[in-house]
């Protein structure tokens, strides 16, 4: 079904209305929960035979609250999907808007900041593609997902670039990806091992610290304001869900071989993978006089 700009905007508008209702609901439930806690505290002070039933009903309420919050998050997720769908359709229709580099970088940043956060149920482990947890070897990235792809540039040099999956060619076991940087325009057909899916969820350092790369891990990270991944060392882990890693990129122009710490979002830090030619120092296009 073609998704026109108007219908996409309409669908998003509907979701936003839903979210608003959810927020009101959450607000009410939170207020009710506060009362419940107060009454529980009271009940504990004066031994009460009904304490058990009281607790049971309160647990039920808390489950409801959780369900509402999750429903709201699901709506946000839907909006992301609609936007993504619309973007893919617009691109396939060939009328993609030319966006400037600056805007592109901003979008790259934004999509990392708004990556859904994994909020597990008690005892639940972070799934694959959450934070540093890699995908299973049989996993196939979906159309529109972002990946790191080892692609050849114009100068025949291989680089890990930020790319988007156009399709997966099952027969050849190859990905068809497109460079995020539209100025490059290149489509690449790459074998599966040259494509690394990026995380689909952020891990919360406060609850799922195991899903983060430990300090001093050698990783590949997207150099800020570029669309290329380079070898780096984890310098500091994010402390909250919204924080970014600080990594040290290999850079031969610095005396110790590493650049100053730079921030990189969880989404753009992935496990290091050796290539034939070990990734050289970061280089991009400098505008300088």
């Amino acid at each position, binding site marked *: 079904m073609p998704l026109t700009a108007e219908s996409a905007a309409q669908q*998003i508008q509907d979701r936003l209305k839903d979210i608003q209702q959810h927020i009101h609901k959450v607000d009410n439930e939170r207020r009710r929960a506060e009362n419940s806690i107060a009454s529980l505290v009271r009940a504990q002070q004066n031994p009460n035979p009904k304490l058990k039933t009281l607790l049971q009903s309160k647990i039920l309420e808390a489950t409801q609250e959780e369900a509402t919050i999750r429903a709201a998050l699901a709506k946000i997720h839907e909006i992301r999907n609609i936007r993504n769908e619309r973007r893919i359709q617009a691109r396939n229709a060939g009328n993609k808007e030319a966006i*400037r580099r*600056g*805007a592109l970088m901003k979008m790259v940043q934004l999509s990392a900041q708004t990556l859904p956060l994994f909020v597990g149920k008690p005892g639940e482990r972070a799934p694959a593609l959450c934070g540093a947890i890699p995908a299973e070897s049989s996993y196939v990235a979906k159309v529109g997902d972002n990946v790191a792809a080892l692609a050849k540039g114009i100068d025949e040099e291989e680089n890990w670039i930020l790319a988007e999956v156009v399709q997966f060619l099952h027969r050849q076991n190859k990905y068809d990806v497109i460079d995020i940087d539209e100025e490059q325009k290149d489509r690449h057909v790459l074998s599966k091992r040259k494509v690394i899916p990026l995380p689909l969820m952020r891990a919360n350092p406060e609850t799922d610290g195991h899903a983060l790369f430990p300090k001093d891990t050698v990783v590949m990270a997207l150099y800020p*304001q570029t669309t290329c991944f380079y070898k780096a060392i984890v310098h500091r882990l994010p402390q909250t869900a919204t924080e970014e890693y600080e990594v040290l990129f290999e850079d031969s122009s610095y005396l110790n071989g590493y650049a100053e710490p730079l921030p990189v979002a969880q989404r753009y830090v992935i496990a290091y993978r050796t290539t034939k030619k070990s990734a050289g120092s970061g280089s991009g296009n*400098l*505008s*300088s*006089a």
Partner: protein
Amino acid sequence: MSGGPAITLKSQPIDGNNSNSGNAAAQQQQSGNNAAAAASSSSSSQASSGTVPPAQEGTRQSSLQRIQQRKQKVFNLPEAQKLAKLSMYSACQFEGCRCTGWKTPQENRHRDVESSYCPEPSEECRNASCRHPLRSHISHLTEISRTSMDDLLGAIIDMENLFMSMQRVEDEDTKKVYLYLFRLLRQCVLTRQQAVIRGPLGDPPFESPCITKAVLSLVFYKYNHLNPTELQTMTEVAKTFLNFLNHYNFESPSARRGDATLTHDDASTYKINYTRWLVFCHVPAFCNSLRQFETSLVFGRTLLRTVFQNMSQQLKKKCISERDRFPEDKRSIITQMPKFLEALRAELLKDDSPIWDSTYRPPNSFVMQQRKRHQEVAPPATISAAGAAATSSSKRSTVGEPAHKRVKKEVAERVVSENLDDLPTDVVMRAMKSVSESKTTNKSEILFPVNVSRDENVKAEEQKRAIEFHVVGNSLTKSVDKQTILWLLGLQLVFAYQLPEMPREYISQLVFDTKHKTLALIKENQPIGGICFRPFPTQGFTEIVFCAVTMAEQVKGYGTHLMNHLKDYSIQRGIKHLLTFADCDAIGYFKKQGFSKDIKLARPVYAGYIKEYDSATLMHCELHPSIVNTQFIAVIRNQSEILKELIAQRHNEVQKVRTGLTCFKEGLPSIPVESIPGLREIGWKPQMRPVRASRPLEESTDPEKLATQFASVLQSVRQHTTAWPFLRPVTAAEVPDYYDHIKYPMDLKTMGERLKKGYYQTRRLFMADMARIFSNCRFYNSPDTEYYRCANSLERYFQTKMRELGLWDK
């Protein structure tokens, strides 16, 4: 007549006044009534000036009120009593008498003419040398009008108040000024003239630009990028500041003597300005027979620099102490005040700050908007005694007001004359409003984040103070603060990493050179980019030496914004050209910033000044002095949106479906455009094609005459020695691939045939065919061929021939 003081007022007014001051004092002392008490309490607050900070604004207000009340009371007295009051300061008209004022007889000395006492016209003056009746002191006054009598009485009360103040004030300098003004008023009452202050103090305004203008420029300069509400707040902050300044009691020069940082020159300058302030601004606030000037309108940077520190401290304190008295919606003024004061302080200290440049001028649109807002909103909140001060100051007539009105009128007139053919302002305003409204409900934004202009994000960061721009440089003559040195070091590193081709020593040498400056982009107190440049004011250009943004902060628009800042900085210093040697990676960047390889400056202007580099391209950018580059993108964007909105509005207004045209079916080949229904209604006008200045007047509209002229040109061209390749069409037999390349062949024979058939109805058609011959030739043949040269030379010949007949442009 009688043996009074030998010194007359007229010949030696100073001494004469000296004796009179005693006179007035005596009068003051004898009137022990309410009015005098009011006067003395008013003077007490005056007297406090210079020694006591203006803590008692309320006292000031109430003294003003009391003075006013007393005057009103005197104005309402019966005429006889008024005359009696006047007589005390009026010279005896008796011939030869030198008495300068009637003195109450001994027996009535305890009585006050301002209350119940009304002396008889026959009562004699107590002055031993006079002894003339009251009548002879007022005989010249009976004819004067009621208003001029009231004016005189007002001046008398002012004078009496001044005298009391003089008695109380401790500061010697202030005392002298009061005495001077007292004498002046005394003289004016005596001669019944308007008080005008002349002399070595000079006439206001004393400096240009005045503080008001500079402060408003500052608001524009610093805060114009804010949204309208925030800008409005900053404007009110500025007005509050000005209001505070206008009611600020300056320290007396003696009180400042303790300040060791003041040089002798500073002190004497301050003394002069202090005296000016007393005479023109402060005292007239209480004595309205003197003309009052607003401090902020007559003084400029010099005065503000000297008082700023103390004044801003008091203002800050006041802001804190009066915070709760401020209405909720005005609180933002208080919170913004420290930021504003800091910005103003910085601009005060900078020697080259644009806001103190008398030629600096916010664009008209900004000034008008400010005025408009000023008219719309209530008068600005006053920090001191909210309300009362504002009303009293609006009552007073000041020089500022008429000037202000005049300017406004001029602006309005200009707008009217410019807009004769333009849209009415309210239509444009409506469009602007709906543009700003639609921004908030933009549908496409729901789908994707808006593709904002290149510098929008940067400007937002600058506004939030997440990033800052500073021009820094090393100096050997002045001490350079540690911060500047740290930034310069950081900048040197940024350049070194981003420009690996440049030797590091060379970068250090230039960044720390005293003739070079660097516009630094600071984020979290670290330089993350910058432009190192060297201005050549004598040559009128600035050389850009290094320009870089650190790797991880690139493609965010910082480079663009840096360059715009540099452009504005240069324009403010009267420099209109930027030059740079760009290496191949940088050419793209400089092109985006409006630089071109086409150098419009004459080489002698820069040769020998600019550092030349091999394998780099010289690029030039000319600056337009009336463009604010940091605002440019936003302005253009806005204009385009407003224009779109105007078109859309017009479209809605005129939208109408009409029945289609049938004339073509009926066989008409064409109709004049203006006869299409509806076109004229929506304002379409037949386009008057401007007469081309270059078009020769001789060009005949007569086709026959033209044909003859073309025939003669064609004949001459055919006979030219280089015409041989073009006489006949090229055949495929001779040149097999010719027609693969040439789609529109032309030759002189074909042209002759066309001429005969009457094809060349206009000069343009004829010229187009001829041009085709040459362009075909040059397209097919390479420049080193004989054909190519023939085409060039025949083309020149053709042009000469056309010119001879007046058929060639220019």
